[in-house]
């Protein structure tokens, strides 16, 4: 059923094909022989509707005829219509109207109906599939018309469409008429046969076969004809249904003598025959026995068993869920022996010993007091007392003897016990043989039971019922519910009836019922099989019925109908009818009289019962209304209670009548044979159908089923609407505009080196700046890269400096602004610079930086050009113009001089905003100041160089205009003198200046930066991605004149160049001129990294974050270390790992929901499993023990 729905298209196609085939098959007698698979034919052979059997049409032509036909010359292969044939145009779509379908539904949807039947029995899809592989053909009803006609075309070959259709129609008509036995139809058929030339109504398929294969008639039967394989058509004369071989047929041949000899067996057979006839005929024949239904195929039976088993197992397994979940979630399982977990007290004696009478319980206290008063408060005292008493009565010898006797007895008992235990443990061969024999006996008995009873009904329903019964049986066998042997039931029973509440009572009662029902089934079967006449047997079986049957709603109805039947004078006690015994004990007059009497009595009882039933019905209805359908369970229970009574009534009836009420008790028995226990609704329905329905009913049933099915299908199809496509919201991407910062405010410029620094050297020497300090803070603002050449426009270096030394620059600025110290500092810078500022210009950068720090003091040399796109306000010393280097600020000496004068006029020219702490720090500045003071005197004479100060000041101090500042600084330097004399080691080293000069000179020729730049370029080039580039040797593959670069080649080269440039720009050292960072793939270290985030992780970031905590003892507190590194399973050595056991409290606790419980579970690091049982509260305590 599920298949066609899943791929509708396929099913439709198949349906089309199937319908086409069916069209052929519709022709009555040749239906589907060619088209039906083997299974189908098997099924048909099983069914009793042999009238439709393909093989029925098998002609009995002798071989010669066939051969003659085969070898005869055929004049005309074309099909000729009879001369009087009148062709009428039938539209394909109108060929079958809805009415036709309804009428001949059996032909349209035979399979469907069978499927319906199965479904009605409540059996799953797969079962249906197994029974009938043509499931897919279901859709046949939906698309008639074109598809069908096409198929007809294909299969019929040269026939007209209309003709084929007509044939089909007519044949169906035939079929319908056949059952009625209409003569007209007979004649018509004869005519058709004449026309078509097909022997014995060959129909479309046969005709086709004949057309195609002249030898077609030869191949007919699947089985060779023999006495074991009777041709059902041969015996069609007698049976109710044409073509069946009935038992009556078999019995007919018996002579009187033989009949007598056969005796009971014959009677039995006759009964069976009667039932068979009855099943097909009018009534269910009360005394008749139905033949045993064919047992279900083992595959089906086993499947039912598996199904039941699966359900039971699934239910059983679910209770483990919480435990298993907790187990799986626990970071660590700790397996310990359960020895300590199990309570030691296991015997009653121990319990008694432990018992302490509680003071609260008055009775206990009283009893204890009494016992104590009597000196019998413990077993020991009692024993002692007894012993003493016994000894007191005896003499010494006797006492001795007694003691010995007791000892002997004790030891004997002990030995006996040992022996018994040993014997019990022995499982000998004999024991097993015995078991096997018992099992065998049981099996044969069951088989014998199964052989009797049963009957014929609607095949499908019966089958369904059988399946259901099988399932119920398997379920019952698994659960053993009927035995009241479960722990719960035993406990409930033990507690006694008084304490049992209503629900438990009902449940227990149900169990009892089940058990009794089962027993009754077994016994009842036996009884009815053994002798129908045995009253006592029947009555016991009926009285067993008292528990009532499990089946709910129809029970009272059945009882009611039985009662009504009784009242009507029918029923099992109907002695007047044909059922009346003619022989035996019951035929005797006194028995008859007694029966008469009992009948009367029974009728009275029935009247009473009917009344009661009515009342009950009324009550139940009221209650149902009250409960408004919500308390279905309660209602059902009440109904069951009512039923119990009703069943009781039925039982009473049966007891009175001496015979089971067939409607109530008999159905289940009747339908399923020994396998049917439950006798579900389907079985009842089947029985009812069997009772009510004749052949016609069958057909009508099928019709209605078909119609229903078609309706349902149409509904289903109609519901299938097209899926509307989900609207996809397009994600709007925002273009992130990037605002670039104007540089102008933050231009940090250091001047290129000045050759004039040389002069400072002299100054330094002259000053004798002999500080012995090793280091002088160069006090530059940004980081000075001594190695990086500062070209005029080396903006990037500037930028670097700007970034890295922003803070420092502010400090420098502050320092510069400090009026008092300015000049001293400047001088110090100059002094230090002087040493390095020689001809070689080696330390230009350093000098520049230092000068930058000098800032406002005006030692700095400004850059010649500051690039700027727009005019960002006037800059002192600069002219905004478009020159050789583009648009920007150009250094103008004159303007600078003017500005410098202006700036220099004010004492703290640059240092407007500097903080006090910095000033204080500057004051502490040590050796520098000394140097500053000493060089101070030379300062004015030196060639003045101006440098640009730091950006935030925006004030350029020029040496020219720094006279005032110089003066101020001189004063300040003088003031600091005394302090600085205390720092002798900061004076320049004696040899320092000279050496430095020497060093500069020594490195003058070395251009390490250029060298390094080359090296870096080579290294980068070596590590760039290897992009293949097309290249052509000049003169190869082209004429000499065509040596130009083709466009594609150029494009490829450009692309390669771009890739390389991108790779170079993406390097870590792209912005670091003086650094090469190797980007070689470190193959050896690659094994310590992951190429992608490992499996459960989907996100790299998550993975990496999860690794952030080191696991070692060095990095974690002890507890955390152990939590982090504890293995997944901890096991005490020597402990057997017990299989997991179920403990309800643990399961309950582990299954608890809610935030608190979850937090508790999550907080638990170790879960302890003791002896296979999860310790509910355990874990936290376990921590201490392990490790």
């Amino acid at each position, binding site marked *: 059923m599920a298949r066609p729905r899943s791929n509708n298209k396929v099913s439709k196609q198949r349906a089309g094909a199937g319908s086409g085939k069916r069209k052929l098959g519709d022709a009555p007698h040749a239906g589907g022989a060619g088209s039906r698979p083997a299974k189908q034919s098997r099924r048909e052979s099983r069914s009793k509707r042999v009238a439709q059997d393909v093989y029925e049409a098998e002609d009995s032509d002798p071989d010669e005829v066939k051969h003659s036909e085969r070898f005869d010359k055929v004049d005309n292969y074309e099909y000729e219509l009879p001369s009087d044939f009148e062709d009428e145009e039938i539209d394909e779509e109108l060929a079958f109207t809805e009415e036709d379908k309804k009428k001949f539904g059996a032909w349209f949807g035979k399979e469907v109906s069978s499927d319906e039947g199965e479904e009605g029995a409540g059996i799953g899809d797969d079962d249906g599939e197994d029974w009938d592989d043509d499931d897919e053909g279901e859709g046949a009803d939906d698309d008639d018309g074109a598809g069908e006609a096409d198929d007809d075309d294909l299969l019929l070959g040269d026939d007209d469409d209309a003709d084929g259709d007509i044939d089909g129609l007519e044949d169906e008509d035939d079929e319908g008429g056949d059952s009625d036995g209409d003569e007209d139809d007979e004649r018509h058929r004869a005519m058709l046969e004449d026309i078509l030339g097909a022997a014995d109504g060959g129909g479309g398929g046969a005709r086709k076969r004949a057309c195609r294969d002249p030898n077609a008639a030869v191949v007919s039967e699947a089985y060779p004809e023999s006495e074991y394989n009777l041709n059902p058509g041969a015996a069609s004369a007698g049976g109710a249904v044409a073509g069946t071989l009935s038992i009556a047929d078999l019995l007919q041949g018996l002579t009187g003598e033989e009949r007598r000899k056969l005796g009971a067996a014959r009677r039995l057979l006759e009964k069976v025959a009667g039932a068979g006839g009855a099943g097909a005929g009018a009534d269910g024949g009360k005394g008749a026995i139905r033949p045993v239904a064919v047992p279900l195929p083992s595959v089906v039976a086993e499947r039912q068993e598996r199904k039941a088993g699966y359900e039971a197992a699934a239910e059983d397994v679910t209770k483990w869920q919480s435990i298993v979940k907790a187990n799986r*979630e626990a970071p660590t399982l700790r397996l310990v022996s359960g020895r300590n977990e199990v309570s030691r007290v296991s015997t009653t004696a121990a319990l008694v010993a432990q018992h302490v009478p509680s003071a609260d319980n008055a009775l206990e206290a009283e009893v204890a007091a009494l016992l104590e008063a009597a000196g019998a408060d413990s077993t020991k005292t009692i024993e002692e007392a007894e012993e003493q008493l016994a000894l007191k009565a005896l003499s010494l010898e006797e006492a001795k003897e007694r003691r010995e006797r007791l000892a002997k007895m004790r030891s004997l008992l002990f030995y006996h016990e040992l022996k018994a235990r040993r014997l019990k443990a022995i499982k000998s061969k004999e024991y097993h043989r015995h078991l096997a024999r018992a099992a065998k006996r049981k099996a044969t008995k069951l088989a014998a039971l199964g052989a009797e009873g049963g009957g014929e009904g609607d095949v499908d329903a019966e089958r369904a019922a059988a399946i259901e019964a099988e399932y119920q049986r398997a379920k019952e066998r698994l659960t053993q519910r009927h035995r009241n042997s479960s722990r719960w039931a035993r406990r409930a029973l033990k507690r006694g009836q008084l304490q049992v509440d209503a629900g438990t009572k009902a449940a227990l009662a149900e169990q009892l019922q089940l058990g009794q029902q089962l027993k009754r089934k077994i016994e009842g079967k036996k009884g009815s099989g053994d002798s129908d006449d045995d009253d006592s047997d029947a009555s016991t079986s009926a009285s067993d019925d008292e528990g009532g049957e499990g089946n709910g709603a129809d029970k009272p109805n059945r009882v009611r109908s039985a009662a009504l039947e009784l009242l009507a004078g029918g029923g099992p006690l109907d002695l007047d009818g044909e059922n009346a015994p003619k022989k035996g004990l019951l035929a005797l007059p006194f028995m008859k009289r007694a029966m008469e009497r009992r009948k009367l009595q029974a009728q009275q009882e029935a009247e009473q019962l009917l009344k009661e039933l009515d009342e009950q019905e009324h009550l139940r209805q009221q209650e149902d209304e009250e409960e408004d359908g919500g308390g279905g369970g309660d209602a059902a229970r009440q109904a069951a209670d009512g039923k119990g009574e009703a069943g009781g009534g039925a039982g009473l009836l049966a007891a009175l009548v001496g015979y089971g009420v067939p409607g109530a008790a008999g159905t289940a028995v009747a339908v399923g044979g020994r396998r049917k226990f439950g006798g579900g609704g389907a079985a009842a329905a089947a029985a009812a159908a069997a009772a009510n329905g004749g052949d016609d009913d069958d057909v009508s049933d099928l019709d209605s089923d078909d119609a229903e099915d078609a309706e349902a299908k149409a509904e289903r199809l109609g519901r299938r609407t097209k899926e509307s496509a989900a609207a996809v919201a397009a994600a709007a991407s925002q273009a992130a505009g990037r605002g670039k910062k104007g540089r102008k405010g933050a231009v940090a410029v250091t001047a290129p080196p000045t050759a004039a620094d040389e002069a400072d050297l002299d100054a330094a020497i002259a000053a004798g700046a002999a500080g012995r*300090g*090793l*280091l002088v*803070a*160069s006090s530059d603002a940004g*980081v000075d*890269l*001594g*190695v990086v050449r500062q070209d005029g426009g080396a903006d990037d270096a500037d930028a*670097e400096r700007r970034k*890295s030394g922003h803070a420092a620059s502010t400090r420098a600025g502050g320092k510069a602004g400090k009026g008092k110290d300015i000049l001293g500092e400047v001088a110090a810078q100059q002094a230090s610079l002087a040493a*390095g500022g020689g001809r070689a210009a080696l*330390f230009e950068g*350093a000098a520049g930086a230092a000068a930058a720090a000098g800032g406002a003091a005006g030692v700095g040399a400004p850059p010649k050009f500051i690039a700027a796109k727009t005019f960002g306000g006037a800059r002192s010393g600069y002219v905004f113009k478009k020159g050789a280097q583009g648009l920007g600020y150009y250094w103008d000496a004159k303007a600078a001089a003017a500005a410098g004068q202006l700036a220099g006029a004010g004492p703290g020219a640059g240092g407007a905003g500097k903080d006090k702490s910095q000033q204080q*720090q500057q004051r502490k*500045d*040590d050796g520098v100041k000394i140097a500053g003071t000493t060089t101070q005197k030379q300062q004015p004479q030196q060639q003045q160089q101006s440098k640009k100060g730091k950006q935030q000041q925006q004030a350029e101090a020029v040496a020219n205009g720094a006279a005032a500042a110089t003066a101020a600084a001189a004063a300040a330097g003088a003031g600091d003198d005394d302090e600085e004399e205390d*720092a002798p080691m900061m004076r320049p*080293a004696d040899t*320092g200046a000279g*050496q*430095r000069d020497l*060093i500069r000179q*020594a*490195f003058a020729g070395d251009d390490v930066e250029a060298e390094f730049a080359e090296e870096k370029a080579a290294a980068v080039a070596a590590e760039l*991605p290897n992009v293949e580039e097309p290249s052509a040797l000049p003169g190869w593959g082209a004429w000499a004149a065509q040596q130009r670069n083709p466009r594609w080649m150029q494009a490829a080269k450009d692309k390669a160049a771009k890739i390389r440039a991108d790779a170079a720009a993406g390097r870590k*050292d792209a912005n*670091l001129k*003086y*650094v*090469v960072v*190797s980007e070689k793939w*470190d193959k*050896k*270290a*690659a094994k*310590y*990294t*992951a*190429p992608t985030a490992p499996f*459960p*992780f989907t*996100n790299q970031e*998550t993975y*990496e*974050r*999860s*690794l952030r*905590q080191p696991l070692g*003892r060095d990095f*974690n*507190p002890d*507890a*955390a270390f152990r*939590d*982090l590194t504890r293995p997944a399973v901890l096991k005490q050595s020597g402990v057997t790992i017990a299989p997991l056991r179920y403990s309800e409290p643990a399961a309950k606790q582990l299954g608890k929901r809610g935030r608190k419980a979850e937090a508790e579970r*999550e*907080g638990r*690091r170790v879960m302890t499993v003791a002896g296979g049982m999860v310790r509910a509260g355990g874990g936290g305590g376990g921590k201490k023990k392990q490790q």
Partner: protein
Amino acid sequence: MAEDEPPRQAGEGKTSKKRKKVRDPEAEETAKRLKRGPAVDLKSITDKKLKGKLKRTEAVFASSQKKAAQINEWLLPASAGTLEAEGIERTWNFKQEAIVQAVDVSAAAKAFDLSLPELGPYNLTFTRNGRYMLLGGRLGHLALMDWQRSHLVCEVQVKEAVRDVAFLHNETFFAAAQKKYVYIYDKRGLEVHCLRDYTDVHALDFLPHHFLLTSIGEHGVLRYQDTSTGHIVAQHKTKLGPCDVMRHNPHNGVTLLGHSRGCVTMWTPNLTTAAVKMLCHKGPVKALALDPSGTYLATAGVDSQIKVWDVRMLRPLHAYYSHAPVTHMDISQRGLLAVGYGRKVQVWQDALRSKAQSPYLTHHLPEGVLETFRFCPFEDVLGIGHSAGISTMLVPGAGEPNFDTFVANPFQTVKQRQQQEVVALLDKLQPDTIVLDPDTIGRVRKEPADVARERRSEETAANAARLAAMRREAEAKAKMKGKNKPSRRHRKKQSNIIEDRKPTIKERQKEEATRKKEAAQKKAETAIPEDAPRAVRRFYKQ
């Protein structure tokens, strides 16, 4: 006023709230440091199992961090002190004599001069716990001493030039770079190894976590020798000439070399070329020093500059000048920078992180010319080796006052030392793990496309070879008898592990999927909407 009040109150309320929250800023910083970055974002994880697992581990992490922060408070009982000058005093004015007089007796004992005029100048080094000092006189004098107790452990006269000395993992072994070879001695002064694989070594260094002895010398070849296995792990030709300036970065184990052309190079055993090469000075690099966190690098060149670099960014932070080229440098555990040349030693405080303006201490050697100096771990002592012997200098605030016995224990007993040795060997890091950024270990690192391609091709080749081998084996044993033996069946199953058709099938599936997708897309594109008027329909692509 009335208008002013409410906001003020609100402000007050805020501050009071904050005050409740505010903890000790230091503790907060510690907590932040211990957190090691943000926690895993659990919300983004869809995998339930993983989520549960991570939730648990995160809880453990959190508790661990919390506890660690608490423990930190208990474990750092001592705080480092420094000299503080009052009024017009300057710390660099304090003479050693004055300091020695001021400190307690036990500390005063640590300042001493060892006059060894014959066999100098002396190299020296300390063990990692600071307890033992190793002396190497240029003229062949090797001595191992428990310097705080003035106990000479052993003394050898090797009678050839000793250029450098280094302790191995503890005081029981030390290496000396002698005239030609490197020798290893034990604590009795017995020569236990002569490393003849390389000659003319100028500088030695030891990586304690990796058990690697590194050496470089006249030929400019950097060698890594594993002292636990004895193998030479790697030899790299620097191609930058003779070199005698070598230090390692304690953070990542990368070896730094200073070369004569002003370059400083960083090396790992894995790469045959320098991992980083940077131009630091104009003239030869004379000295290198790294701070214990491995963040700051100080270099000194002949160009009289001293530069401080940020190793993480490879950018210079500050530059200092000296009047003469500095020949030696060292950085103490607490970040004091010692520089020296000739007879002068200066110690600078806070000279790395920020730019210091004045030295912290200065010292003038009474006799001899400076050869080397080293800060003693866990002590406020600078050991100086010079031509006239050994001197020590007290530098208050140089050493780490709180020691971690997992790292180094100055009061180690013999047992503890033995234990420590075993533990260190067990925890030994493989030489492969030395990389510039050790945090990348364990992380996701995308391999370059060509590497991935190569690896894949190798894998497929290996698979094919294995499959072929298995087939061959199976063919060789193809007998009908016992075809279904369990062992045989098992083997058959095993041989199915590598499915040679699987990759092609997968590829085909992938192709199919993409094709379908494309087709669907195309269809979606070409579909003409229902409401499009007939006239317009022809404009849609069919």
